[in-house]
């Protein structure tokens, strides 16, 4: 088994603490409804949910772009509502839609942002250089951003959020609208930032794969509330684990199956289904088991429990609903700004 990442990174310092946070918009919509959670220093925390679940609003309240209707919100113990500017100094924020200025060069975008974040003049150029290098943009630093690809724009945005060496990086749907290879690259950088510099990262996402890949802990949000909170592994365990299906060449004699590997939940003459906590690790054990009993196996397939099942269980709806609108919008952004 993999060690639980949360225990590895466990830190007693609380980076973000939200208590009974509520945001009611003027039209009476409760975007965020009595939400409480805390993000520990050094972890990657994900807010997972479909459109309109309240993820972005929650993030905006932390970045002080939206005002909470009620509740408490602290960043490293500092009251977000009372000292917004002090809090913003500790944050790097990458909004969902493209927010770099496409009429400026990458270098200029970083320069302006560094100045507005009051980065010391002596350190400024060094930091910009490092951020560009880190995000693999050095070669194109003096090109206008409108000539960039979507993945490059996203990397530039993260670079921009890095120049003030934030304690917490907030990423709103970091890989939305990106093609699979750009997505992988962005993920790699996010993980690196967390590992190399210990930056606490809060992401919002509707992409289960992304949440699973990146996050140490996830809060699944639905209709303004947190439906469940935990590590991806625990959450998936919670819905029952992976199902391994074994098909036999000829009918299988009755056997007693070891409990350590899994539980048989269904069987007929030519196949059985075994519930396991981790499918990949169970497959060789299962294969060995049947081989030692001289039962010929035709095929083994695995049906992994995913966060969608978790979401289904707690939010009573599928995660994918209403997702394409967002993806299309951001794709349009990329097309519109890159010329």
């Amino acid at each position, binding site marked *: 088994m993999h060690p639980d990442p949360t225990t590895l990174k466990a830190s007693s310092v609380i980076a973000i603490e939200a208590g009974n946070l509520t945001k009611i*918009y*003027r039209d009476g919509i409760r975007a965020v409804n009595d939400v409480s959670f805390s993000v520990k220093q050094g972890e990657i925390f994900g807010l997972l949910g479909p459109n309109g679940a309240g993820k972005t609003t929650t993030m*905006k309240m932390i*970045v*002080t*772009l*939206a*005002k909470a209707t009620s509740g408490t919100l602290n960043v490293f113990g500092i009251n977000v509502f009372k000292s917004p*500017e*002090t809090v*913003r*100094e500790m*944050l790097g*924020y990458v*909004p969902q*839609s*493209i*927010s*770099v*200025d*496409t*009429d*400026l*060069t990458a270098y*200029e975008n970083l320069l*302006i*942002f560094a*100045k*507005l*974040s*009051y980065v010391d003049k002596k350190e400024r150029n060094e930091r910009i250089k490092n951020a560009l290098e880190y995000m693999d943009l050095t070669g194109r630093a003096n090109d*206008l951003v409108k000539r960039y690809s979507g993945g490059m724009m996203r990397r530039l945005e993260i670079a*921009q959020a890095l120049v*003030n060496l934030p304690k917490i990086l907030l990423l709103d749907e970091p890989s939305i609208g990106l093609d699979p290879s750009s997505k992988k690259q962005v993920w790699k950088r996010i993980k690196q930032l967390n590992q190399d510099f210990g930056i606490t990262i809060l992401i919002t996402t509707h992409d289960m794969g992304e949440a699973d890949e990146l996050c140490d802990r996830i809060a699944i949000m639905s209709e303004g509330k947190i439906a469940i909170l935990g590590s991806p592994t625990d959450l998936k365990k919670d819905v029952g684990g992976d199902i391994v299906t074994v098909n036999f060449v000829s009918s299988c004699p009755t056997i007693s199956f070891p409990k350590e590997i899994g539980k048989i939940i269904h069987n007929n003459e030519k196949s059985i289904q075994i519930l396991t906590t981790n499918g990949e690790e169970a497959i060789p054990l299962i294969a060995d088991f049947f081989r030692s009993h001289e039962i010929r196996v035709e095929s083994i397939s695995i049906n992994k429990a995913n966060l969608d099942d978790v979401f289904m269980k707690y939010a009573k709806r599928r995660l994918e609903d209403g997702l394409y609108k967002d993806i299309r919008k951001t794709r349009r*952004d990329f097309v519109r*700004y890159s010329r």
Partner: protein
Amino acid sequence: MNFLRFIMSSITVAEMEARKIRHDSTELWTRIIQPALWLLVFGETFNTIRAMPSGSFSYIQFITPGILAQSVLFISIFYGITVVWEKDVGIITKLLSTPSPRSSIVLGKSLAASLRGVFQAIVIFALSLLIGVKIRLDPFDIVGVFAVVILFAMCFSSLSMLLASYMKTRDRMMGIGQALTMPLFFASNAIYPISVMPTWLKYISIANPLSYVVDAIRSMLLVGTYKNLPIDILALTVSTTLFLVLASRTIKKLLE
């Protein structure tokens, strides 16, 4: 020091605009066409037919300060559209998420508008010298004119940002801009003296900030007496400060 940081942030926001203009200044040049037409066509024509009682000055002399003020007015009153556009593409979100105080961002944006205003002023100066309009070229007066242009652009761009906080879309801002510019322009002393206006319009022109601006520029560029200048500047400073403070408070609504 906080005040120093505040000013630094504002200058940085204006610097952002300057850098954009350096990359692509097409808009600035196309913006010149309209005031140039006013001067060259309207001004020259009415100068020839002598239809306006422009006092001891030729008509083209009379309207040069008016056209200068008008073109700065157009730029600054439509500046809200730029800000709404920047909101739509996420730039405002980004600016407001920096540690810089919001009021410094608003001040910076208004300085950015006056940067464009100053450019207009320079070109109109050049144009009027080119066509031989006699204006006073006293250095102090010219500095004074630029100071008024900057203040004026700040005033109306912050009004525009204040309106944008509530209007939120480019279309609405376009409509508001159209609805404001023409009445402001025609109910002012920009292209004809207040004395020829019907009585009701005279009252309106007294409440019209553009009249004070034109008056200030005219007194420096043509007349050379500064009797009304303190009142002009005071009226302008008060309204600029007011709009800046209000816009700083409302700019966050733009994101809602």
